[in-house]
């Protein structure tokens, strides 16, 4: 089996360890020998979006040093992977960095691309689930077809994997891929608009009678869950990995 490394984004490591564990389980149950290099911290995205490119470049270099020896890097985050795939080569000007960016995968993207012979246990999740599109998984990694474009339809690997679960009902949303308003520093710099964006997503999800909201990005979920709890909106937030690994208790 190929030499696969798990990258657990810094904030997932500290705030959502269960998501990291779920991702690890999903990879291991498919027979991967997964490494978790302990020198990993942050991909640099928060620095880049905050306008500190030199700091982002330092962390990008560190990312390359940490992960360059692996055949593939998998992370339970569309957003961090988008940063790595789109910006690693720009931040660390080397062929090595460019190639590493290209073999860094969002978890669902990686799982859905495995041959059918790589099987995993069949699970169920008998709930009404809203799949919140992570902007960066969708519009940077092109995992799915953005509603703005008229490009040929692409399968969203998260939707595909969730669809395999017994009993799950993926509810249709009025606005299929509108941003939740997290956006890194945006969440605090533009606090009012950010919260309103989350509220509008939650309203859409509840109108579709979703019990659970899921996403490939924990940042979107922390944002949505934060506003839902404050407003008393009854919806539970789980990362796609948690649902797929049977770790979500709705």
């Amino acid at each position, binding site marked *: 089996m190929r030499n696969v490394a798990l990258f657990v984004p810094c904030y997932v490591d500290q705030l959502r*360890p269960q998501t990291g564990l779920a991702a690890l389980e999903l990879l291991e149950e498919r027979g991967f020998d997964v490494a978790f290099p302990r020198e990993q911290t942050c991909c640099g995205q928060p620095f880049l979006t905050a306008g500190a490119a030199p700091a982002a470049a330092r962390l990008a270099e560190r990312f390359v040093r940490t992960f360059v020896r692996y055949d593939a890097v998998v992370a339970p985050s569309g957003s961090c992977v988008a940063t790595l795939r789109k910006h690693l080569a720009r931040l660390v000007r080397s062929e090595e960095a460019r190639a590493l960016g290209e073999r860094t995968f969002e978890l669902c993207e990686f799982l859905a691309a495995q041959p059918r012979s790589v099987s995993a246990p069949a699970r169920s999740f008998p709930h009404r689930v809203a799949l919140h599109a992570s902007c960066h998984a969708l519009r940077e990694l092109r995992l799915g077809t953005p509603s703005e474009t008229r490009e040929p339809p692409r399968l969203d690997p998260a939707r595909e994997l969730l669809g395999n679960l017994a009993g799950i009902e993926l509810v249709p949303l009025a606005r299929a891929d509108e941003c939740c308003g997290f956006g890194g520093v945006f969440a605090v710099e533009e606090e009012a608009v950010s919260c309103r964006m989350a509220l509008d997503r939650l309203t859409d999800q509840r109108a579709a009678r979703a019990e659970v909201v899921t996403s490939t990005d924990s940042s979107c979920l922390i*944002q949505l869950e934060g506003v839902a709890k404050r407003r008393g909106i009854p919806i539970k937030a789980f990362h796609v990995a948690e649902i797929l690994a049977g770790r979500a208790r709705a």
Partner: protein
Amino acid sequence: MTHAERAAAFVADAERTSWHDQALWFVRAKRDRAADAVPDWEALRSEAAAIKRDALARLPELWERFEMEARKRGAVVHWARDAAEHNAIVHELLREHGVTRVVKSKSMLTEECGLNEHLEAHGIEIVDTDLGERIVQLRREPPSHIVMPAIHLKKAEIGALFAREMGSAPDLDDPTELTRVARRDLRARFLAAGAGITGVNFALAESGGFVVCTNEGNADLGAALPPLHIASVGLEKILPRAADLPVFLRLLARSATGQAITVYTSHYHGPQATDREQHIVIVDNGRSRLLAHPSFWEALACIRCGACLNTCPVYRRSGGHSYGVTVAGPIGSVLAPARNPEKHAGLPHACSLCGSCTDVCPVRIPLHHQLLTWRSELTARGLRSARWRAAASLARFVMERPALFAASGGAARLIGRALPATWLARLAAPWTRGRELPELPRASFRALYAKQRRERGE
């Protein structure tokens, strides 16, 4: 005031925010359906992007050709380095012709140059004839949207404005009736005007002509009735060939409002009669400087359709006036810092980087990547507070040291779990103003992973 402060004031009116969001989302949805009707929308976007980039790469050649051809057709061509020169040229033309009353169709360039204020200061009456522009002119406020200048106003507010300004019935809120009121008022002003000013959507190098797209026919009337027609055009508006036009006409109205084409697509080639004059003012006003910038030059491909505003989740929930510039929304946030970095350093942060603008743009401007690039560029120019820079340096210092990262993360969670909720919320503001903090787990992933490996005997 910053964008964030003005946006917070806008969002405070939850009902109005919903209304504004839905009005613009309606336009976005209409645009989606219009795009569906074009068999190869994405190829059309690519073609438009390529034509614009080619044109931008050879502006001097194209404008020289334009000037030569336009002169042959009897137009007079003027060159304005900046807003002041543009305004002075227009004012001088009006003075020469003894004009004191002017009608003007929609032109974001003249807004950008502050032409109205300049002419009014010299005692010239200038009337905006686009209905939306007329409304914001009467309210003495800037347009909130480049295509729909009065999109921030409700029908009843316009009714009240017209009652005050034009003496219509105070409770009038029927759009057709309101339009009739404005039309009656405007018709007299058209007839009295000594000159008509228009913008330009596309200038054609090949023929020296230009095209103006409107839905109201106001540009046509303004250009045809008075003896003097002045067209102001930005340096980026040139297309090489007339054959390029269909590509843009198919994209412009569909992207802007979801119409297949604007109601009027008017072509001008020289004065309309021998006793008429046509003057074309070509304006730089910072455009050539932007063209020289490796990251932002592509923004000059913009055809001002407004699709990026309509789709922007921040614009829809903060309103055009929150940006404090003539062109609001994503494209405005790219253009404004180029013009005045000190004043507009905050605008690239009025964006969640969702990328919807880039995907909706008919000429494929990588808007959200440009906004991201601006952030670091403005920081590098020292336009971020020292406190903020210190925080970023500290965070980087921690992130470069995995052991320190793990230890400080653990300490923060431990303290966070021990503190009373209200204290913690105060510490975590502004996150907690409208949101709860996530539950703080006892152990990090890396700690749980290490434990798991120990248990497995690794």
